[in-house]
């Protein structure tokens, strides 16, 4: 079901003036295939940066914004990562914000419970009478809640910087280099490629079911959904077989090795990253 929601989302994204599509004619985005984050990663202007550099910068920033636990650091991280993604990467602001907003409901639900509390007595700095009980909060608590939100957003924007500029295959190759077990990385590679094929098959089956009134009422819809799910399983087995034949035909002998392009990391990039990290440290030092 989630694939459908995803599809609808970027359908909207594209009809309502999506900047990226106009600027990057090199990659045509076909509707109904995959997620928009994946698409943006391929279209990013900083895609040719060394993936290991991007992954480590994003991880380091993520760790710093959590460990340092400082609202100024969080703000600096949000601004810097936004700069990298939007100005350097060339992603439109609307697209960036809409992706950042995906986890907003989780964040709000999570942080509100920290900011407010319930009581039967009218206590706290501010309180609101709601029939049988009071909702109360204080300035200090609101502050904690706000800072926590900043921290979460900083962490998310650091991760988004990575995922909006580095295609999954490159992230996987970085994992391979830091010796994540081969079983996982090979599976990730295959699953990544496979997801798009299965989404495609799923859309085709749904369309053909829909054209035969397979979704005319709720009961039929559930029935059709089940049929499609089981059919998808059978199709995936068949595809796996065909895939294996094709791999063997090209001399596959148990090790999945892909050709990677060497992307050099420049000294300037490392220097800039070092300055940024030290700036975060100093900021933390001064505002502690």
């Amino acid at each position, binding site marked *: 079901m989630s694939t459908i929601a995803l599809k609808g989302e970027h359908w909207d994204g594209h009809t309502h003036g999506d900047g990226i599509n106009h600027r990057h004619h090199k990659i045509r985005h*076909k509707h109904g295939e995959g997620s928009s984050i994946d*698409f943006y990663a391929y279209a990013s202007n900083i895609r040719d940066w060394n993936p290991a550099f991007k992954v480590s910068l994003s991880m380091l920033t993520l760790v710093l914004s959590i460990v340092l636990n400082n609202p100024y650091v969080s703000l600096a991280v949000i601004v810097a990562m936004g700069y990298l993604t939007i100005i350097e990467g060339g992603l439109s602001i609307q697209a960036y914000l809409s992706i950042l907003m995906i986890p907003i409901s989780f964040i709000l639900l999570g942080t509100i419970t920290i900011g407010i509390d319930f009581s039967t007595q009218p206590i706290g700095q501010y309180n609101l009478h709601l029939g049988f009980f009071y909702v109360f909060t204080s300035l200090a608590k609101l502050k904690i809640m706000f800072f926590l939100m900043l921290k979460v957003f900083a962490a998310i924007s650091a991760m988004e910087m990575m995922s909006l500029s580095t295609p*999954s295959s490159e992230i996987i190759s970085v994992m391979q280099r830091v010796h994540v077990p081969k079983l996982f990385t090979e599976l990730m590679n295959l699953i990544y490629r496979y997801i*798009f094929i299965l989404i495609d098959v799923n859309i085709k089956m749904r369309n053909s079911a829909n054209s035969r009134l397979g979704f005319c009422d709720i009961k039929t819809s559930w029935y059709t959904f089940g049929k499609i799910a089981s059919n998808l399983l059978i199709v995936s087995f068949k*595809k796996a077989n065909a895939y294996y034949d094709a791999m063997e*035909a090209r*001399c596959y002998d148990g090790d999945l*090795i892909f050709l990677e*392009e060497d992307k050099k990391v420049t000294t300037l990039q490392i220097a800039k990253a070092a300055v940024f990290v030290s700036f975060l440290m100093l900021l933390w030092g001064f505002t502690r």
Partner: protein
Amino acid sequence: MGEPILKIRDLHYAYGNGTPALNRIDADIYEGEKIAVIGSNGAGKSTFFLNANGVLTPDRGEISYRGTIINKKNLKELRKNIGIVFQDADNQIIASTVMAEVGFGPMNLKLPKEEVLRRVEEALTYMNILDYKDRPPHYLSGGEKKRVSIADIIAMKSEIIIFDEPTAGLDPLNTQMLEEVLDKLGSEGKTMLISTHDVDFVYRWAERAIVFSQGKIIADGTPLKIFQSEEILKKANLKRPTLMEVYDLLVEKHLLEDTKAYPTSTQAFKEMLGNM
């Protein structure tokens, strides 16, 4: 003609359910031949290809490549030298960028990285898709995916290239592109086997046709000879190429002299009519 590159003798293969898919197949493939493999669905063409490449192991019979009989140990040699372009490009494309995909075969051959890069570049230029190098396959169109799947095999530099129904699902423009690629490969002396249902294509392109029916080879010869035999056409459920039909009709109506010199292309036909 010399020694055949690929010699197949008494090949048997049955799938798990026991019904034989290939039954006593004998075939010799010589260097530089352009062979069409025809026959109805389920006649055993694809199974034959997978056996010839060593993906499937025959139940009986032997395959020799350049005089060496293929066994478990030198199987890789066979796979390296016989490439298959699969019917559905989505069943073949495995990597997440075009470059990694085309490099997959050469990487498996354990070539040095510079050599792999050179071959990938070469194959992509050959198929005119060098610009797609960094693109992921899931954002390519059907025709583009087909080109990638052909570049896959070109990068492996295999001696024999097998195309399994290459025109299936392609639009006329992409079909034309494919034929141009086939001509280009042919002019370089590549040995090619193509399975297809397009008899007109067989008639105009192939030098030799192998007809499969129910797991057996029922005919092996020039397309002209095969399409002239009513018996073979009936057995394999084949139609005659349009050009041959037209020629025969003209002969029948005494508009053309019956010299049995069937034209193989519309161009040749035009010239023939012009000479009258």
